[in-house]
């Protein structure tokens, strides 16, 4: 049976300000969706809200996986239901080794009812699996002993996100600008690796401005976010068009949303000026 991530009329506020204004989206296991939109349109907000970041408050609508509502669930419960977010800005955790971090993560996600303190995945099995995944991703196995994201370059951080995805094998993976900060060879490599990792058991929601990450992961659906609303949905051709020609066309086709975008930008500038 294939799982479904259902987003229904989702409204999300940050610090009391509405950012997403009624987003609806159905994603089935095995599908690839591209989510595009200009800076500030709310792409990361959607990603964080799906994962349950406390700053991103769902004020209306609902998110569910196979009928289980996520709205009130803690992020760890969502991860254990098969949701994954590759962060646009991965966080550094000093003193915590990549291998230790991942061993906890993998154990929890594979045993969703595990309580803290209960046994971790056996070290031997874990090491073997991690080594295999790192080799597939062309990562130096020394990374396993480094502290998570500490002193990592931009590209290394993004690869670490993909490694985590490879180990956790989620049903639904949201990739938030995983291609930014990578040179074109690296993007191509990540795109290829992703294609190998995914399959009928994994759905991807790829947030990007470009179409390079999509090269080996051709989306069946492309959605355009503008001022917190999905204003257009198409196929891979739409992603290509946006990559080649930018968002001017989208704005002219949706003048109301474009006006809201402008207003939000001005408000942002004001907030910034007051700080």
């Amino acid at each position, binding site marked *: 049976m294939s799982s479904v991530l259902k987003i229904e009329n989702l409204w999300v506020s940050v610090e009391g300000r509405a950012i997403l204004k009624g987003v609806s989206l159905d994603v089935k296991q095995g599908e690839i969706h591209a989510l595009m939109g200009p800076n500030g349109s709310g792409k990361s907000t959607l990603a964080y809200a799906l*994962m*349950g*970041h*406390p*700053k991103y408050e769902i004020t209306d609508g609902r998110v569910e996986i196979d009928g289980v509502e996520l709205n009130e669930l*803690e*992020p*760890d419960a*969502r*991860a*254990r239901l098969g949701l*994954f*977010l590759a*962060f646009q800005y*991965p*966080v*550094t*955790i*000093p*003193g*915590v080794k990549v291998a*230790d*971090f991942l061993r*906890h*993560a993998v154990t*929890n*996600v594979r045993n969703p009812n595990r*309580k*803290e*303190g209960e046994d971790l995945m056996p070290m031997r099995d874990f090491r073997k699996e991690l080594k295999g995944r790192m080799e597939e991703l062309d990562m130096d196995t020394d990374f396993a002993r480094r*502290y998570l994201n500490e002193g990592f370059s931009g590209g290394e951080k993004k690869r670490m996100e993909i490694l*985590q995805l490879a180990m*956790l094998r989620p049903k639904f993976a949201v990739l938030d600008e995983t291609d930014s900060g990578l040179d074109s060879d690296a993007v191509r490599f990540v795109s290829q690796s992703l294609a190998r990792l995914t399959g009928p058991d994994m759905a991807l929601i790829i947030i990007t401005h470009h179409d390079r990450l999509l090269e080996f992961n051709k989306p069946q659906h492309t959605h355009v976010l503008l001022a917190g609303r999905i204003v257009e949905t198409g196929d891979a051709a739409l992603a290509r068009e946006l990559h080649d020609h930018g968002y001017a066309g989208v704005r002219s086709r949706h003048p109301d949303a474009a006006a809201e975008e402008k207003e939000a930008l001005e408000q942002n500038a004001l907030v910034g000026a007051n700080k």
Partner: protein
Amino acid sequence: MTTSAATTTGFGAEAFQAFLATRNEPGWVSDLRRASFGLYQESLGRPLNPEEWKRVDLRAFQANRFSVGGRATTTPATRMGTLLGNHPTTCEAGFAGAVAHVDGVVVDSHLAAELTAKGVLFGDLNELLRTHGDILKPHLMTRAVKPGVDRMSAWHAAFWTGGTVLYVPRNVVIDQPLYSLIGLATPQTMDGSHTLVILEEGAQATLLEETASATTTDAGLHVGSVELLVGKRANLRYVQLQNWNQQTWHFAHQAGLVEQDGSLQWTVGGIGSRLAHIHQEVFLDGKGARGEVNGVTFATDRQTLSYYTQQTHRSPNTTSDLLYKDVLRDEARVIWRGMIRVDQAAQKTDGYQRNDSLLLSPDCRADSIPGLEIEADDVRCTHGATAGRVDADQIFYCMARGMSRYEAMHMIVEGFFHGIYDRIAVEAVRQTLSRAVEVKLGIGQ
């Protein structure tokens, strides 16, 4: 034991006389107490050194509510809420000997027979002063912690109740660690433990000491002292894990003195107490002496943990390396005031001190005040202090990978302590500290 002595609270002249009457100790020991009591009474008229105490709030402390222990106890060591030793009354695998004190009274003491045969002494201070006073007298409160330093040292020197002694003769190497427990069980009791460790030239030993309470609710007081005397080429690892309940006041003078080419590795764990103030000194007395201090503290609720540390270099080519790592939560407060002193003679000194704090809540507070006083001209001394907060994004990141909030917090705290765990060579201590962190975080309860 006399009833009148048992009912005299406080630490005035009457209480002192009553206490002295119960002691069965050599005359020179009682003389030392009397002299110290005089110093104590004098010191009451003077303020405590403001540089050391001004950040420590003692307003709620009332000494007269407590009475000195060291007379009797009915509580076995197994009743203590210990972290390190599961059954400190038995010489379980891994320990070469164990001594336990409750309410200032020794309740258990033993040492592996082959070590006794080699001349090692390990046991209660009271008893060993009677049987081996000649060995201990030159060291007791004469070299590392002298009675006259301040009110706390004089108070302790007059009213000390007992404590663990470890004496290791020349070139004797003890591989397995020794265990010492200091417990409090009777409410309103003052423990006056005096830990005395003497390593002769070329000797080696590891002593793990823990303080613990029988209940979480009874008020207690510790006015203690630790003296670590490390001879030439000797090597001592000493750990004290302060794990009193949160109703206990802890005041201590603790000092280590290292002779030529000797080495002291000293680990301090600060977990318990309502308020703790430790005056900790390391004296690098002989050429090439080395002292390493590791502090791991985790303060929660309304606890105050205060450390006043001094690294004193008195000879050339000496090294000191101090690292305190503090985690705070709730409304807890940690104060660290450190000083590296280098005498004129101590050329080629290498001194280091550092204090890092991790703040888990908005209302906790950490104060770090490093300092240097250098009279030699060819030295390398550095210090540093950092304070950071766990931010919501780190927690969120861990949780997004399937970890519970506690597990995320645990991971981040363990990561913070990681650098210091790497320095602590004794696996049992690392595990114990790690377990203490779990208890503090409320995991596994």
